[in-house]
C-alpha cells in the first residue's frame, strides 16, 4: 500500500456513513458521523464525538475512455469550496478517495429555506426576513469578494441548521469571474425563476449582478411566501418579469433595444412594488427595487446591499437561534403524508405519528418505533 493510499484510508476511517438521504445527477448523499479518536492518558481508549456530517459520494460518468470521469460540477464544487470559509457558506470538511470514488465530507444541515417558506405553520415577522437576508448576503458577499459567482442562488440551496444559521450550499454551478482575460461564460445557469433578465439574451460575459437578482427574488419570496416570478418557459419568464416590473426602456437598461431586437415584447407599465408588498416598510422596498434593477451595471452589489439602511433600521434582525424553524417530528409527519398521498393512507400515518410521539414521550429514550429512528440528539443524550 502506498503512502498516499494509507493517508486516504486514515481520513476515510474518521467517518461513518449512516444512511442515504438523497441522490442527485452526479452524487449520492449520505448522512454520517465524524469520529475523532484521541487517546486519554494511558487508558488507550478511543472516544467518539459525533459531529453529524453529509458525505457526498461523487458518481463516475461515462467518457471516451470508459467509466472514469467525474462530473464537471463536482470539480467546480471542490475547487470553489476549498477556497471559501465563512459562517454563512457550507463547510467542506474533508475530501478523500476510496478506490475510484471521490467523496466529499460536508457540514450536515437538516433544513433549507424552501422548506421553511413552504411550511405554512410557521409565521415570519419582519425581523426574521431581515435576518435570513443578512445571512444570505454575508455569505454571498464573501463569494463575490473572492471573485466567485454562485450562479444557482435559490431558497432550496440556502440550508438552515438546527442553530438557525443559514449557509449557502451547492456550488455545482459556481465559477470565478472578472478574470483578466475574456473567456466565454455559459448563459444556461441559475434556476429559471431566479434567473436575471440579462441571462435570457445569451451574453458571453456577465458578472456579480446575476446572483443579486436571485437574492432579490428570494427576498420577495420570503415576503410573499410563494415564488415571486414562477415562469414556465424561458420566454414566459421574461414576459413575467416585464409584467411585474414593467418592460425596460433604453433608459432603464442601455443596450436593451439591441439585445432584444429579435423578439418583440409587449409594453407593460411598471406597477410600484408597494402595491404587492403591502406590509413591507419603505427601506425594504427600496432594497428590493435596487436588487431587481434591469441594468446589471446599476444593480446593487452585495457589499452595498449589506450597507443599505434596511439592515441598520429597526426592527433588528432576529438572532439565528430565535428564527422560526421546523420541528423535527413535524418534518417526519410531512414527509409521510407526502409519501402516502398516492396510496391514500393519510389517516393511518397520522395514527402512527401520534403513537410515535406518545412513545417518544413516555419511554423517552427507547429507540425504535416501526421503521423510524428517534433523532440523533436523543441518542446522544442517552
Amino acid at each position, binding site marked *: 500500500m502506498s503512502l498516499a493510499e494509507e493517508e486516504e484510508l486514515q481520513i476515510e476511517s474518521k467517518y461513518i456513513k449512516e444512511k442515504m438521504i438523497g441522490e442527485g445527477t452526479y452524487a449520492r448523499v449520505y448522512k454520517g458521523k465524524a469520529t475523532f479518536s484521541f487517546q486519554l492518558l494511558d487508558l488507550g481508549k478511543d472516544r467518539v464525538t459525533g459531529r453529524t456530517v453529509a458525505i457526498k459520494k461523487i458518481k463516475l460518468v461515462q467518457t471516451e475512455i470508459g467509466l472514469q470521469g467525474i462530473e464537471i460540477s463536482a470539480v467546480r464544487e471542490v475547487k470553489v469550496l476549498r477556497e471559501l470559509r465563512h459562517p454563512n457558506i457550507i463547510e467542506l470538511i474533508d475530501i478523500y478517495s476510496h478506490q475510484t470514488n471521490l467523496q466529499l465530507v460536508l457540514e450536515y444541515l437538516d433544513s433549507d429555506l424552501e422548506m421553511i417558506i413552504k411550511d405554512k405553520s410557521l409565521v415570519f415577522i419582519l425581523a426574521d426576513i431581515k435576518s435570513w437576508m443578512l445571512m444570505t448576503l454575508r455569505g454571498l458577499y464573501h463569494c463575490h469578494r473572492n471573485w466567485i459567482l454562485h450562479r444557482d442562488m435559490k431558497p432550496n440551496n440556502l440550508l438552515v441548521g438546527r442553530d438557525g444559521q443559514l449557509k449557502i450550499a451547492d456550488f455545482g454551478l459556481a465559477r470565478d469571474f472578472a478574470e483578466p482575460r475574456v473567456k466565454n461564460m455559459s448563459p444556461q445557469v441559475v434556476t429559471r425563476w431566479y434567473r436575471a433578465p440579462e441571462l435570457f439574451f445569451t*451574453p458571453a460575459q456577465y*458578472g456579480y449582478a446575476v446572483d443579486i437578482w436571485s437574492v432579490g427574488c428570494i427576498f420577495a419570496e420570503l415576503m410573499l*411566501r410563494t415564488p415571486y416570478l414562477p415562469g414556465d418557459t424561458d420566454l414566459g419568464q421574461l414576459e413575467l418579469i416585464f409584467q411585474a416590473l414593467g418592460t425596460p426602456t433604453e433608459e432603464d437598461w442601455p443596450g436593451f433595444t439591441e439585445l432584444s431586437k429579435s423578439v418583440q415584447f409587449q409594453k407593460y407599465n411598471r406597477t410600484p412594488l408597494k402595491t404587492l408588498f403591502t406590509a413591507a416598510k419603505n427601506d425594504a422596498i427600496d432594497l428590493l427595487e435596487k436588487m431587481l434593477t434591469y441594468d446589471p451595471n446599476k444593480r446593487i452589489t452585495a457589499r452595498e446591499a449589506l450597507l443599505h439602511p434596511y439592515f441598520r433600521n*429597526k426592527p*433588528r434582525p432576529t438572532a439565528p437561534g430565535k428564527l422560526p424553524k421546523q420541528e423535527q417530528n413535524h418534518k417526519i409527519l410531512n414527509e409521510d403524508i407526502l409519501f402516502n398521498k398516492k396510496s391514500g393512507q393519510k389517516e393511518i400515518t397520522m395514527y402512527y405519528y401520534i403513537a410515535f410521539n406518545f412513545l417518544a414521550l413516555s419511554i423517552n429514550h427507547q429507540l425504535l418505533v416501526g421503521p423510524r429512528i428517534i433523532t440523533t440528539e436523543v441518542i446522544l443524550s442517552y
Partner: protein
Amino acid sequence: MTSRLTTPNGKGFQDPDEECPVCRNTRYLTPNMRLLVSECYHKMCQSCIDRLFANGATECPIPGCKKTLRKISFVEPTFEDLSVEKEVRIRKKLAQQFNKRREDFNAPKEYNDYLEMVEKLVWNLNNDIDLEKTKARIESFATENREIIARNAKKQFEEEEWASRVQDNERKKKKKNFEEYTNKLAEEKKAKEAHKAEVIELLANSTESAKSILEKKGVARKKSNIRIKDSLDNDNNDGIGELLIGLDKVSQEEETKEFDPIASEYMDIDHYTLKDKYYDTYLPTPSLIMRAGGYNPKFAYERSLQSAFSGIFSDKKEEKMYS
C-alpha cells in the same frame, strides 16, 4: 407581510394542489387556472367551461348532476370550501326577505320560533330537503309580510348610512389629534433649541459665572418641559399611541448605527485606488451590448489589483487567522 399571501398577479394565496374535477388539471401545472363555480355548486376551470358550453346550454358534466347550465351561470367563488359558499349564498338571499327584528314580535318565544324557522329553511335549502315545500313556504312568507319586509329594509339602509358616518367622524378626529401632537412635538423641539441658543449667548456675553447661569437656566427648562408633557397627557389619551409609531423612526436609526452588517472575519485588501480608466491593450473595450449583458472590465482591474496587493501588508488579525 406574513398575513397576506399573494401571488404576482395579486390574487389571494392559492393551493398548488387544487385541481379541476373535469380535466384534472392542477394549479401546480397551470398557475393561471381560474376555477369557477356553477349554480349547482360544482367547480370547474375556465377552459373546461369554454369547451363544454361553446354550443349553448348543456347538462352539468359532474356525474349524477343533471342540471342544465349555461356559460353565464358560472361565477367566481368567494370561499374555497363550496359548502360554505353555498350556505353563505342561501343566507344572503333569504336575509332579504326574512329581515324581521326583535321589536316586530310580542314575546321572546315568538322571536325564537321565527329564528328557528329561518334556520330550518336554510338547512333544508342547503341539504336539498323538501325543496318544493320549502320554496312554497318562503314565497308565502314573503307575500304575508310584504309591508314589514319593506319597512325593515329601509331601516337597515338608514342604519348602515349612520354607521359609516360615525366611522368617518372618528377617523377625522384621530387625524386631527395626531396633527396636534406632532405640532406640539415640533414646538417643544423649537423651544429646546431656542433655550440652548439663549444659554450659549449668555455664557458668551455675561459677566456672571458659568455655573450659576447653567443652574438657573437648567431649572427653568426642566419646569417648562414638565408643563408641556402634562398638557400632552391630558389632551391625547384616546388611542393616539398607535399613530405615533412613525415618529420614532429617526431616533431608531441613530440607535442601531453601531451595528456591523458585514461582520467579516477577513481583512479588506486596500492600499490601492481603482481608477476609472486604464491604458489597456489586452481586454476589449466593451461594446454597448456587452455592457448590457453585465460585462464591466472594472472588475477585472480590481481583481488584478487585489491579487497584486494581497499579503503585502500583513496584519495581525490576518496572521491569527492563518496560524
